[in-house]
C-alpha cells in the first residue's frame, strides 16, 4: 500500500479520535478523573476485565465524574503510540497501558509524562512508565507448569505455545521452562511457536505441533484463549493424549475445567480487576503528589485446577 494512502488512513483515524474527544470535551473538563486505557486485544475477556476494573475503581475514587476511554492497540506499536498521543491531546489525567512492546512506546510514554499525564503500565512492563502493576507472571508460569509436571509424573514430552513478545508472556514462559528444566525426564519439544495470544493463533500453533510431534503429553499456553484454541485443534485432530495448562483464569477456561472431557486441567488465574484497580489507585495517588514505595507491583497468580475450580470466584 502506498504511503499516501497510509498517511490518509492515519489522518482519518486521528480525526476520528479527535472528534470523539471533541464530542465529549465538555465532560472532560468537568471530570475529576479522566483515564485513557489502551489494552492489547479487546477480543480477549481479560483485557475487557482490566478496563472494567479500572472504570469501577475510578468511580469509587471520585464518584461518577470520571471519563474512561478504552481503546485496543491490537498489539500494534504504531497504533498504540497514536492512541497515547491522542490521550495526551485529550488532556487525560492518567493513561493505563498494556504496552504492545516494552520499549516501542517509550518515546510516547515519556512525552505523555512530560505533559503531566501519569502513565501506568498494566499487565506488561512498559519502559518509562510511572508505575507498573502486573501479575507475578514468572510465578504464574511456574505454578501452572509445576502442576503439569506433577500430573505427568515427572516425565513426558511437553510443548509451550508462546505468544506476543511482551514481558508478561516472556516471564510466563521463563517460569515454565525453569520448572521443566528441573525434571530431566521432561522433554521440551517446542517453545517458540507464536499463538499470538489468541484463540485462532492457539489453534494454528497446536495444529503445527500436532503435525510435527506424534506424541505430546503436556501443553503450556501463555493464556486461556490460546489454550482454548489448542484444545480446538486437539479436538479436530482427534488427539486427546495430553493435558493443557495455562495462565489467566478466564471464564472460558473455568468452564472447561468443570468439563471432565476437557484437556485443560489447570490455569494460573490472574486478577485483572484488582490489577486495574490498583493501577488506577496508584495513578491517583501519583496525581495527588504522593511518592510510591515501589513502582512495580506484582500480584501473585492463583492456580485453579479441576479439583479446586469450585472454589474459584472468577473475575
Amino acid at each position: 500500500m502506498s504511503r499516501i494512502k497510509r498517511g490518509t488512513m492515519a489522518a482519518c483515524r486521528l480525526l476520528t479520535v479527535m472528534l470523539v474527544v471533541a464530542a465529549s470535551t465538555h465532560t472532560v473538563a468537568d471530570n475529576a478523573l479522566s483515564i485513557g486505557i489502551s489494552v492489547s486485544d479487546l477480543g480477549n475477556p481479560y483485557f475487557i476485565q482490566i478496563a472494567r476494573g479500572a472504570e469501577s475503581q475510578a468511580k469509587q475514587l471520585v464518584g461518577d465524574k470520571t471519563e474512561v476511554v478504552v481503546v485496543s492497540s491490537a498489539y500494534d506499536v504504531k497504533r498504540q503510540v497514536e492512541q497515547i498521543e491522542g490521550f495526551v491531546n485529550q488532556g487525560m489525567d492518567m493513561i493505563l497501558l498494556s504496552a504492545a512492546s516494552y520499549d516501542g512506546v517509550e518515546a510516547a510514554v515519556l512525552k505523555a509524562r512530560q505533559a503531566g499525564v501519569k502513565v501506568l503500565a498494566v499487565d506488561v512492563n512498559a519502559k518509562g512508565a510511572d508505575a507498573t502493576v502486573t501479575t507475578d507472571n514468572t510465578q504464574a508460569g511456574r505454578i501452572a507448569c509445576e502442576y503439569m509436571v506433577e500430573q505427568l509424573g515427572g516425565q513426558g514430552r511437553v510443548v509451550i505455545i508462546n505468544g506476543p513478545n511482551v514481558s508478561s508472556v516472556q516471564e510466563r514462559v521463563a517460569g515454565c521452562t525453569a520448572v521443566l528444566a528441573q525434571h530431566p525426564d521432561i522433554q521440551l519439544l517446542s517453545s517458540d511457536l507464536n499463538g499470538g495470544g489468541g484463540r485462532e493463533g492457539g489453534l494454528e500453533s497446536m495444529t503445527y505441533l500436532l503435525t510435527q510431534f506424534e506424541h505430546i503429553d503436556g501443553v503450556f499456553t501463555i493464556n486461556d484463549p490460546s489454550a482454548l484454541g489448542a484444545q480446538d485443534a486437539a479436538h479436530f485432530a482427534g488427539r486427546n493424549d495430553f493435558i493443557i495448562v495455562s495462565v489467566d483464569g478466564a471464564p472460558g477456561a473455568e468452564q472447561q475445567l468443570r468439563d471432565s472431557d476437557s484437556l485443560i486441567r489447570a490455569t494460573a488465574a490472574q486478577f485483572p480487576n484488582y490489577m486495574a484497580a490498583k493501577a488506577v489507585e496508584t495513578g491517583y495517588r501519583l496525581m495527588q503528589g504522593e511518592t510510591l514505595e515501589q513502582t512495580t507491583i506484582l500480584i501473585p497468580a492463583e492456580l485453579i485446577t479441576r479439583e479446586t475450580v469450585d472454589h474459584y470466584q472468577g473475575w
Partner: protein
Amino acid sequence: MGFSINPLSGLRARTRLLLAFTILSVSAMILALVGWQGLNNTDRALNIFEQQALPDISRSLELAERTANLAAIAPYVTSAGTPYMLEGLSQTLKTKIEKVLSLAQSIPQLDAAAPNLQNLLQRLDITVNELIELTRQHLFLREDLREYEYRLRSLVDEAERFDSANNSEISESMTRMVEILITASHIQSADSLASTRQRFAGLLESLKNSATSRSDRWYDELYSVAVMPGNLFDLRLKQLSLEQRSAFLLASTRAISEQLSGEVQHFVDQIQSRISHESQRVGAAVSSGKTGILLISFLCIAAALGGVWMVRELVMNLASVTLVMSRLAEGDTHQQTPATERSDEIGDLARAFQVFRENAVQIDRISHDLQEQSHLLETVFTNINDGLSVFDRGGRLLAWNPQYLLILELPKDSLQKGMSIEEVHGLLSKEAQESWALDGMALDKDEVNQMRRQQPQHFERHFANGRVVEFRSSPMPDGGFVTLYSDLTERKTVEAQLRQSQKMEVLGQLTGGVAHDFNNLLAAMYGNLQLLESSLYDAPKPLKYARRALASAERGKNLTQRLLAFSRKQHLTPEPTEVDQLIEGMLDLIEYSVGAAIKIKLDLAAGDWLVDVDPGQLENVLLNLTINSSAAMPEGGTLTFCTRQCRGIELNGGITDAVHIEVADTGCGISEAHLRRVFEPFFTTKEIGQGSGLGLSMVYGFVKQSEGDIRVQSKQGQGTTIGIYLRRKTEQVCLPAAEPVTEFSYGQNRCVLMVEDDNQVRDAGQEVLEKLQYRVVAVASVDEALQQLNQRNDIDIVFTDINLGTAVNGLHLAEKIEKDWPQIPVLMTSGLSVQHLSDQYGLKETDIVLAKPYRLEELAMALDKAFKSHTDEGRTRL
C-alpha cells in the same frame, strides 16, 4: 597326441612365452589406454554437465519450489489473527519474494525461457503487499469495532444499574438498540447493513423523544457510536469493502501463482531439454568409449587366444613330461618319455629326465639289492650260532645279535646301543666277570679290551660254571672292533674227550706194545718156570720157589691183561658180569693204584647177582673212583668197596632189582658248591695240568649208558662215598664156566712148525712143545716158515706168533698156508688183546688165538682145538 609342426617350433620356450606375454601386455595396455581415454571423455562431459546443467537444475527446482511456496503462503495473509502475526507473515513473504526475485535474476537464461517471470513476480509482490495492508486495516477496523462494542456494553451495564436503582425500564430498549448495533458490526452484506442502519436511526429518534435525565448522555453516546462520522456502520461497511477487495486480491494472487508456475514450467522444460541434450552428449562420449573398449577387447582376446595357442603346446608337453616324472615318483619306470626331440627347454627337460630316470631305475635296483643283502646280512647276523658284537672306537656298543646275550649269559633286554664296554661287563654275572683266562693264563680284561682295538685278539674265557667262550676280536678300520663269541664248551668237551681218547689210544697202543713185549717176557718166563716146575716135582724147596715164581708170573700175566683191557677203546660190550668177582679180580690193580698208605677194605655182598655191563668199563670206572679217592687222601686213609643186593628200588623210572656198589673214602671230601658239579666235564679241583677233569664225567657216562644211577655223598673233612646202582640182569645165563683143566692129547710126534721171532720165547716154547711130545721145527720169520713148508711135507700144524716184528705177520702166514697148504691147520698166538688183533691186524672171528703167556695145558688144548676145528672145517668144506 600329435602336435603339428608349427612355425614357431624352432623357438625356445622362453622366447615363446616372452612373446606371448609381450603381446598380451601390449594389448592390455592398449585396452587400458582406450579405457582411460573413454573415461576421460566421460569425465569431461560429466564436468560440463555438472557445471552447467546441475546448477540450472537446482536453480529451476529452487525457483519452482519457492514460487510454489510463495503461492501457498500468500493467501495465508488474510487469516492472520493479530497485527503482530500479520507483521511476521508479511516479513516472511517479503523475504521470500526477494529471494525469488534474486534467484530469477541469477538465472541468465530465464529471460529467454520465461520472459514473463520477473513481471509476474513483481505483480505478485505488489498484490501481496496490498493484501497485507488490507488485512492490517481489517484488523484495526476490527479493534475499532471492539472498542465500540466495549462502550456499548458499558452503556448497557449503566442502564441496568440505573434501572435497578430507579426502578425504570429504559435498559430494555437500550439493550435492544445495543444488540442491533453489535449485530450490525458482524453483518455480512452491505444491503442488510443499510437496512439495519435505517432501523436504528428510527429507534434512536424514539429514544431522543423519551427523554430522561440520563437518556441525554446515553443518546449522545449512541449517537456518537452509530451516527457520527467514523461510526460503527461506516466501519463495518469499510470492513466489508476491504473483505471484497481482499477476495479479489486473493484471486489475483492465485492467478499470478498459476501463471508463475506455468512460466517456471517453461523454464524447467527448457532446462530439461538442455539437460537431455547434455546427457545425450555424455552418453555419446560413453558409448564411443565403450565401443573403443569393446574393439580393443576383441583385439585383446584375439591376442590372448594367440598367446594361449602358443603356450598351449608348451604347456601340454610340459604336462606330459611332468606326468612321466610323477609316474616315476610313484614307481612306474616304464613310461615313454615324450618330447625328447624338441629343441627348446622342454626338450632339454625331457632328455635330462630320461637320464634321471635311468639313474633312478639303477639306484632303485641297487637299493633293492642292497636291501636284500642287508636283509640277508641281518638274517645271518641274527641267526648265526655264534654271538657277535660290534663296539665303536670309543668302546660303545653298536650292534649285537641274540646269541651274544645267550652266550655271555647276559640278562634279556639288558643291552642298549651306546652302552660302554665297561657297562656290558657290569651286566655279566659275577662269576663270569672274574674268570678271564687265556689258555690257562689269567688275563687282565682291561688290557685285553685295549688291545682289541688295535689288533686281532683271540682268547678264551672260562666261566665258573665250566663254560668256555671263545672271543675272536678284530679291529675295524674306523677304530671299533667286532667280536665273535663261540661257545666252546661242547667243543672243548669234545676236544678234551678226543684228547683223552687220543691219549687213551696212545696209551693203549703203548700199553699194547709194552704188554706185548712184556707178555713175551712173561711167556718165556712162564714157559721156563713151568718146565722148571715139572722138573722139580721131587725137590720140594726148589719146587716151592719155582711155584712162587710161577705165581708171580701168573700175577704178572693178569696184570698185563688188565692193562691190555684198560687200554682197550671204550666200546661197551656188555656181558653178564658178577660184580664181586670182578672187584676181587682187580684188587691187585687197585692196590697198585692207591699205594701203600691207603688201606683197602672190601665188603662184597652182591653174591651171584649179575649185571649187564662191559666188565672192562666197570673196571675202568672203579679204577677211576679209586684214583680219585686216593688223590683225596694224600696222607693216607681207608678206601672201602661195598656191594649190596637191592631189591625193588626205583631206578630210572621203574622198580627193579639192582646191585649197589659203593666206593667210600676217608679223604678231604667235596664241598657243597662243588658237589653239584662233580660230574661236569672238565670240572676239577685239581690244579691246572693235574687232571683233565674228565674222570667222573666218564664214570657218570658209563653208569647212565648202562641204565644205572650214581650218587655222591660227601662231607668236607670226612670223606666221600660214591654209590652206583646197576640194574640186575635177570636172565639166568649160565656163565661159561672157566674151562676146567681137561684132558688134552699129547703131540704123538706130530710135527709143529713154530714161528716166533722172540728167541727166549721160541726156545721156551720149543721145549714145552717137545715136552708135549710134539716134534718142533722152530723158525723166526715168515720167510723161513715158508721155506720150511716148501721143503718139508711132514708139517702137521703151524704154531705162529702174530706179531713177528715184520710187515708180514702171522695172519698173512695163516692165509698163505690156508691157500697153499690147506690141509695144515694154523694155531696163532699173541701177547696182544683179541680186540687189538681184530682192529689192527684184521683178525677174523673164526681164527683161533692163544693168548700169551700160556700154560702148558693151555697150549696143548689149543693145539687140539686147532686140529679138530680144521678137520671139521675140512669136512664142511668137502
